């Protein structure tokens, strides 16, 4: 007896919880809360340095916001709780309503009785002169013309036509709901088993690790319980934790193109790319790819995105020049030298000295004079090399070559020196991520594309036609209902009635 009561209690509570979570009102309340959080998240910049916040808000406000988690909203316990509640609500709402919708979708077509005709929102009776047969043909043609599937029954001189279309549209809302759940699941999988990291890799260098913005939760948990060791390498001095890749990635080359204004670089990048090579741990080359923004490299589930670049402070790269004969079309000779050094070039019997290198030089097309400009962070916008050419020990002439030139540099002798590259002084900024959940998220995206379209643009429309003989004429009664978009259905209903009457 007592046990039964207890069971009753449990059931009552379970029932209450179920009812609570299956209500649309709860969904609306949660959505509104999510909207309010979004307002806060839009207004307050997330994850800034404390100094930045103190510039904008008073100390007390900053402390309050800090306590409430407003500076890292989306990782607070209450935000996670909000998403969990939303998921629970969505799941239970779906479970609660889906069976009914499924039944309504699969329900067989049945002729409508008199009571039924009274209840439908749209009905109309017309008389057709040609008799029952003609009315039936007309009705069938009208329904088929609007792509209704129908069922015909005849009893006691009465012809019943039951028809419907768009029954599948009842599934739209569930496709949508499941899509959101999939996106959440995919995001969770990403947080548990994936990571987001970065790697600033200088030209010519290789790395076997990337630096983490967030460690996979799963590794953290397993490590915390002492079950398995996390592969993440923690810097004992408190540096950025590193994730081993299981292979090497190397920047073979990096280059930026700039928008030009009248043939001169403006300093605004139009495109930048890196040539990355992957080597296995035995240092065998596995693959090579030229990556650029919007076109990453993926290897073993880890993807490298071109995201930024920069000049390495105080780094000395190598100047790469090409020396070719003016009167012969050959490819010429490649010459590599460091800034400030000289190299003897046999083919022209001259010694070339790179006397200086500036990150942003431009030649005035009219005067031929080279001007030097300030480049932010020493950005190599238009690297310009000051050259001194020696015949034996004596200086023959000086000239300047650069990446993008507005006119020909002065080349008094019968060969031409041109700029090819300044290599090794820049790094490529790579965004590195592993997200095994992304395909689930994409599956969710596809369903989220399709679901609302089905739900909002489709409608389950039913039409019933009853044809009775009335003194040689056919009395045709048409009734119809639609679960949404009544205005459009009304139009269709009227046009079908008209088509039958014709």
């Amino acid at each position, binding site marked *: 007896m007592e046990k039964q009561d207890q069971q009753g209690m449990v059931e009552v509570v379970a029932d209450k919880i179920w009812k609570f979570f299956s209500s*649309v*009102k709860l*969904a*609306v309340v949660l*959505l*509104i809360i*999510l*909207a309010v959080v*979004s*307002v806060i*998240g*839009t207004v307050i*910049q*997330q994850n800034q340095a404390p100094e930045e916040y103190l510039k904008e808000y008073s100390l007390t406000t900053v402390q309050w916001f800090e306590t409430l988690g407003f500076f890292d*909203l*989306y990782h607070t316990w209450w935000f996670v709780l909000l998403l969990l509640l939303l998921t629970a609500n969505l799941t239970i709402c779906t479970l609660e309503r889906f069976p009914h919708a499924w039944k309504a979708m699969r329900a067989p077509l049945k002729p409508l009785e008199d009571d039924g005709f009274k209840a439908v929102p749209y009905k109309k009776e017309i008389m057709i002169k040609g008799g029952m047969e003609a009315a039936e043909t007309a009705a069938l043609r009208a329904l088929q013309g609007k792509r209704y599937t129908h069922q015909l029954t005849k009893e006691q001189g009465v012809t019943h036509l039951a028809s419907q279309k768009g029954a599948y549209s009842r599934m739209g809302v569930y496709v949508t709901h499941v899509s959101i759940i999939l996106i959440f699941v995919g*995001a969770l999988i990403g947080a548990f088993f994936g990571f*987001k990291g970065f790697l600033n890799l200088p030209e010519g260098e290789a790395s076997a690790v990337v630096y983490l913005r967030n460690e996979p939760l799963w590794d953290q948990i397993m490590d915390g319980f002492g079950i398995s060791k996390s592969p993440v390498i923690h810097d004992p001095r408190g540096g950025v934790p590193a994730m081993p890749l299981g292979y090497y990635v190397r920047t073979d080359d990096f280059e930026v193109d700039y*928008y030009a204004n009248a043939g001169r670089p*403006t300093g*605004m*990048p*139009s*495109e*930048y790319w890196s040539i990355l090579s992957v080597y296995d741990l035995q240092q065998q080359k596995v693959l090579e790819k030229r990556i*650029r*923004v*919007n*076109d*990453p490299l993926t290897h073993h589930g880890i*993807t490298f*995105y071109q*995201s930024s670049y920069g000049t390495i402070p105080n780094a000395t790269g190598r100047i790469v020049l090409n020396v070719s004969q003016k009167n012969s079309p050959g490819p010429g000779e490649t010459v590599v030298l460091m800034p400030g050094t000289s190299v003897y070039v046999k083919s022209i019997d001259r010694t070339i000295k790179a006397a200086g290198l500036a990150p942003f030089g431009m030649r005035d097309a009219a005067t031929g004079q080279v001007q030097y400009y300030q480049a932010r962070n020493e950005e190599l916008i238009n690297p310009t090399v000051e050259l001194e050419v020696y015949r034996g020990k004596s200086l023959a002439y000086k000239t300047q070559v650069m990446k993008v030139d507005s006119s020909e540099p002065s080349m008094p002798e019968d060969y031409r020196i041109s700029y090819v590259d300044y290599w090794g002084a820049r790094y490529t900024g790579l*965004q*590195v*991520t592993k*997200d095994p959940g*992304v395909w689930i*998220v*994409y599956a969710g*995206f596809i369903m*989220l*594309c399709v679901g*609302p*379209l089905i739900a*909002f*643009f489709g409608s389950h429309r039913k039409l019933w036609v009853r044809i009775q003989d009335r003194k040689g004429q056919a009395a045709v009664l048409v009734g119809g209902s639609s679960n949404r*978009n*009544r*205005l459009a259905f009304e139009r269709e209903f009227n046009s079908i009635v008209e088509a039958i009457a014709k």
Partner: protein
Amino acid sequence: MNLTFFFAAVALYLIATAGYCIFFIQPERKSIASISLWTTFLGFVLHFIYFILRWSEGGRIPVTSFFEAINALGMGIVMVFLIMELRYRIPALGTFMLPLVLILMAPAAVTSRQIAGLDPILKSAWLGIHTSLALLGDAAFAFAFIVSLMYLLQDHQLKHKRLGAIFHRLPPLDVMDTISYRALSIGWPLFTLGMITGSIWAESAWGTYWSWQPKETASLLVWVLYLAVLHLRTIGWRGRKMAYLTIAGFLFVLISFFVVSRIGVGKHTF
């Protein structure tokens, strides 16, 4: 040269607005309404030609600067208006829709109309797909906003038993309620598609389909608000309450478009 088409389009919109206002005052002059509709249509054609010319001149879909953004938004709203007007035949819509278009496009008079170089991150086929879907979503929301305003106006007339001029020019309440909901149920899926394509693009560009940038968060806010409105509809909310919510939703669309996009964080700056 190309700008001539733009100014001609704006001029035609102005004429159509004037026409629709005259029609609103003297509704018996039905021909003015249809002339205004044709004027709007012609304006739209010129506007579209301008869009295409600018596209070919810049070598990319013109939707990245502030001028281009409001230009495309204006064009999108006119398009939605024309479609809805052809479908529902409510000329009073023009009296309210066209002024909104002109107001939203007004900053074009003072903003830079230069074609600027494109940030490498924006060089992707997603640029056109993502922005047009989002803009069409916004345009449908704008339409729902206008119809809701008209609803409230009509509702106000009824409540005060002023069954006079304005009352007779506006459609019945239930028609406006239905049309506004219809616009939301077109706009929300389009906006959703805009957000999804943006997410996929972000994934291919940055390796993260969602990074809580202000524009993303503001879009989520708009998305969630309209989603709440659509759910309230299923539990029987109609009429005035829906009109207020629809209007509130559009205010957030405006904030997202005109404020969040201009604070300079992330790649939605213009």
